């Protein structure tokens, strides 16, 4: 389902948090109620309208004065239009602002490229002191929100077109990538909604006798260098999958770690240096970009040749 659904479904968690902590506030932009938070704490719910720069500035001011603001902002707009406010007012000024960003990755689908957030991971991870999270399923989304609340510093949480992953209850530790499937022929490092596609690719490859390790890279920053090192040393061939440009996002981050280590071979799947110009629903766009399960499996086979 759309990241919006999962982002808004954090309302009860935030309301519980607000019950215990009087400093918890929510700043939103024309997204309607965040129930039941907005009904239970109307004086701590601020809808500032459609103005991203102001949205982040207001949140930074609230945090500076001791509040714990959770911001709801559309990923493509909050990450780009207010990038400088995030960088300067939250990063440089060290303000404890948590940004919950739906409409991320390619979930905008047929709304076309204005609504694709495929630069946010690269932009946000540039900022010193920033934590960048990209949960793989709704349960993990809630665990990410709780983990973010415990961080003393700005956090960006990207909510994409995620589905529940059956039986997935792994503890959420920022900077640690859970291994969801063991494997020895290659490692697929996926983030957000791409984790589900990677798990399906694992099954497809299994039928071909290819054993793929699947890692859930829910923390883009800090990134799990140890998990990447292990995959590079134990397996050698790594594939990254993300709804993002391969430059600067998960693929970029993993490439940096491998370059530091001087080991491993990497294939980066995601948007190459082109906008998605085709108009299509979400599943078709994944196919066009080459990051649905079948395409991942096909890329893996060629990569292993």
């Amino acid at each position, binding site marked *: 389902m759309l990241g919006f659904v999962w982002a808004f479904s954090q309302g009860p968690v935030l309301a519980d948090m607000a019950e215990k902590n009087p400093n918890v*506030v929510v700043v939103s932009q024309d997204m309607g109620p965040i129930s039941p938070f907005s009904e239970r704490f109307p*004086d*701590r719910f*601020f809808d*500032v*309208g459609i*103005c991203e*720069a*102001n949205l*982040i*500035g*207001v*949140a*930074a*001011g*609230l*945090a*500076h*004065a*001791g*509040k714990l*603001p959770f911001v709801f902002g559309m990923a493509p707009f909050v990450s780009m239009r207010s990038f*400088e*406010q995030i960088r*300067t*007012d939250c990063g*440089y*000024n060290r303000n404890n602002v948590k940004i919950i960003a739906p409409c991320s990755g390619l979930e905008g689908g047929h709304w076309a490229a204005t609504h694709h957030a495929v630069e946010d991971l690269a932009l946000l991870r540039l900022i010193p002191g920033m934590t960048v999270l990209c949960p793989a399923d709704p349960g993990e989304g809630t665990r990410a929100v709780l983990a973010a609340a415990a961080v003393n510093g700005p956090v960006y949480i990207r909510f994409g077109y995620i589905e529940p992953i059956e039986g997935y209850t792994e503890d959420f530790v920022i900077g640690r990538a859970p291994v969801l499937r063991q494997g020895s022929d290659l490692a697929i490092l996926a983030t957000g909604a791409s984790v589900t596609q990677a798990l399906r690719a694992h099954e497809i490859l299994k039928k071909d006798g290819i054993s793929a390790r699947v890692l859930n890279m829910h923390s883009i920053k800090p990134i799990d260098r140890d998990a990447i090192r292990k995959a590079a040393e134990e397996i050698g061939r790594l594939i990254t999958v993300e709804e993002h440009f391969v430059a600067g996002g998960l693929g970029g981050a993993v490439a940096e770690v491998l370059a530091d280590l001087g080991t491993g071979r990497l294939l980066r799947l995601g948007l190459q240096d082109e906008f998605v110009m085709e108009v299509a629903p979400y599943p078709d766009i994944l196919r066009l970009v080459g990051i649905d399960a079948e395409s991942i499996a096909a890329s893996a086979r060629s990569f292993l040749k």
Partner: protein
Amino acid sequence: MPGKKLEQSLRERAATLRRHILKMASNDQLIHLGGSMSIADFMAALFFHFLDVEGKNRPRDHFILSKGHAVHTLHACLAEMGKIDVSEFSSLARMGTRLAGHPSPKAPLVEFSTGSLGHGLSVGIGMALAEKLNGQGARTVVLMGDGELQEGSVWEAALCAPRFGLENLLAIVDRNGLQAAGKVDDILPLDPLKEKWKSFRWNTQVIDGHDMAAILRALKRFPAKTGPSVIISNTVKGKGVPAVEGTVRAHFTSLAGHEVEAALAALEVSSC
């Protein structure tokens, strides 16, 4: 302090702030002189009368210098408050200094680091919202430049503040009429500025920002019954430095020895 005495003391304080800034602009040091000089009177009134930025006698007030390049006046205030030593002025821009060219966390009592224009008012709204929840009566003051008002984010914030009431928020526009490369009126005019703020539902006053009595009267009208307040403070860029007053050069310049001498002499007369 009774009115006339307070006025006189703040006038003298403003003259002292200007003397400090003159020191910073000496010795070939290029500084944002003009915008620092234009706010000196208002800054004297804010820091030595209106605001309690240390929370000594009431909940701590918030001050954001959104036109961050005018930081030299803020540093001068810090010196007058005993937070930095006048001898530090000569360290400006040198390795290891606490005095940056914009408000930075290196200097004491800098509430928020600015420099990129158009950030302060939104941040001020956030602080004012927080203080409204706290209910302790702390004030939030955001000082902007008139050139800064060309930033769209200022108008996002201007539209937003009245939506939440925010009687505890005061914006000041230092309207010195000049920006980096010329007159605001020539580059991107703001007129009718008073009407703009009024139509955005701000309690709007326009004053002579070098008239201490007018500044104090305007501050006395804060807070308004409902909504945030803005004071458009008409000033002269480089005020107090005859060599550069009202010129484009005033924006970013150093001063020759004789120019400093002339300014010091002019200050002697004006603060009496």
